[in-house]
């Protein structure tokens, strides 16, 4: 398998650097790299480093964060060439020697410095019918969903997505085919395909099919490798491939049964 990023080093250390050690941080800005030097601190995260640079050295540095605890999904960047959530990434685990290279998230337009425009990412979320569709009339009663049912388990496996865009940055198919909906949107669609209350399944399966849809995934697994929430969009996409194939076969069968007139025999 052709990994687009260097494989994670088995010798990754989370041991803090010696007191007094310094870190050289190269940040991609305005088409080049700008270098900063920051003191290494115990339990320091990559986001801590960026914040320190912005507060102490260059207030014009643009980046994005909110929760700082791995919930909001806003702090993702390329760290030494790999997409990561920076608030939960320890410098000690990813620094190469005393160096850190930070770039804006791949596959998305840069707004400024380390802040990217997430609009295309969320537009694809919508295009993949990533919102619950309740149907025209409200259900009469609560739906009973057994926690052990296969559908509920499939939903559980993918529901904790925080929309960080790490998988989207990791995916080569997104880079090659800018229309491709991408792992996060397709993973979300798969959780809804397994939601027994949803009434928009035919339209959703149609939306995730085609040259922009699940069939374009090559099972490279970069998304699954990099997702900080340890989700597996690759398997969600495989589920969509099966579900859309089944639906297409059913349509084909129904068409053959009805004949070219398009009328169902009574």
């Amino acid at each position: 398998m052709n990994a687009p990023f260097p494989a994670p080093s088995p010798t990754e250390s989370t041991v803090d650097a010696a007191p007094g050690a310094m870190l050289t941080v190269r940040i991609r800005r305005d088409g080049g790299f700008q270098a900063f030097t920051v003191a290494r601190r115990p339990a320091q995260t990559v986001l801590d480093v960026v914040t320190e640079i912005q507060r102490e050295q260059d207030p014009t540095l643009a980046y994005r964060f909110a929760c700082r605890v791995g919930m909001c999904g806003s702090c993702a960047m390329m760290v030494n060439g790999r997409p990561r959530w920076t608030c939960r990434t320890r410098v000690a685990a990813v620094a190469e020697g005393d160096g850190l290279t930070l770039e804006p998230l791949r596959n998305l337009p840069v707004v400024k410095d380390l802040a990217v425009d997430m609009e295309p990412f969320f537009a694809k979320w919508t295009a993949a019918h990533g919102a619950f569709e309740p149907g025209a009339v409200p259900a009469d009663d609560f739906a009973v969903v057994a926690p052990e049912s296969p559908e509920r388990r499939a939903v559980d496996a993918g529901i904790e997505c925080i929309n960080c865009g790490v998988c989207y940055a990791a995916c080569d198919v997104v880079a090659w085919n800018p229309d491709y909906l991408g792992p996060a949107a397709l993973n979300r669609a798969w959780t809804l395909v397994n939601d027994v209350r949803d009434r928009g399944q035919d339209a959703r399966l149609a939306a995730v099919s085609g040259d922009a849809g699940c069939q374009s995934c090559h099972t490279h697994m970069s998304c699954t490798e990099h997702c900080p929430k340890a989700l597996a969009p690759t398997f969600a996409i495989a589920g969509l491939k099966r579900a859309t194939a089944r639906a297409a076969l059913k349509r084909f069968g129904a068409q053959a049964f009805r004949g070219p007139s398009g009328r169902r025999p009574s």
Partner: protein
Amino acid sequence: MSPMLYLAQRGTAVILAMAVAVHLGTILYAVRGGLTAGEILGRTQGNGAFLAFYGIFVVAAAIHAPIGLRSILREWTPWRGRSLDGAMLAVSALLAVLGLRAALAVYLA
């Protein structure tokens, strides 16, 4: 890729996997057995099973390969739309014609 093209590519992949195995197995058997070209042609000539097997093999490849080629071209070149689909149909036809012609030639030889 539409779900139907997807099914066609995966379905023909299954046929190809089996056909390639039989194809290679037969070559190894024929070579190890020390058969000459003449002896091989003697067995394939007028052999309906031979023709049916390679007919299916060729048709499967003619369906499978252009679908995959279309994906690659869409990813690596800006080529899209009807002209690409038309070209892939032409590749499919070319593979089918060349392959079936070869199988038929051996059958009739």
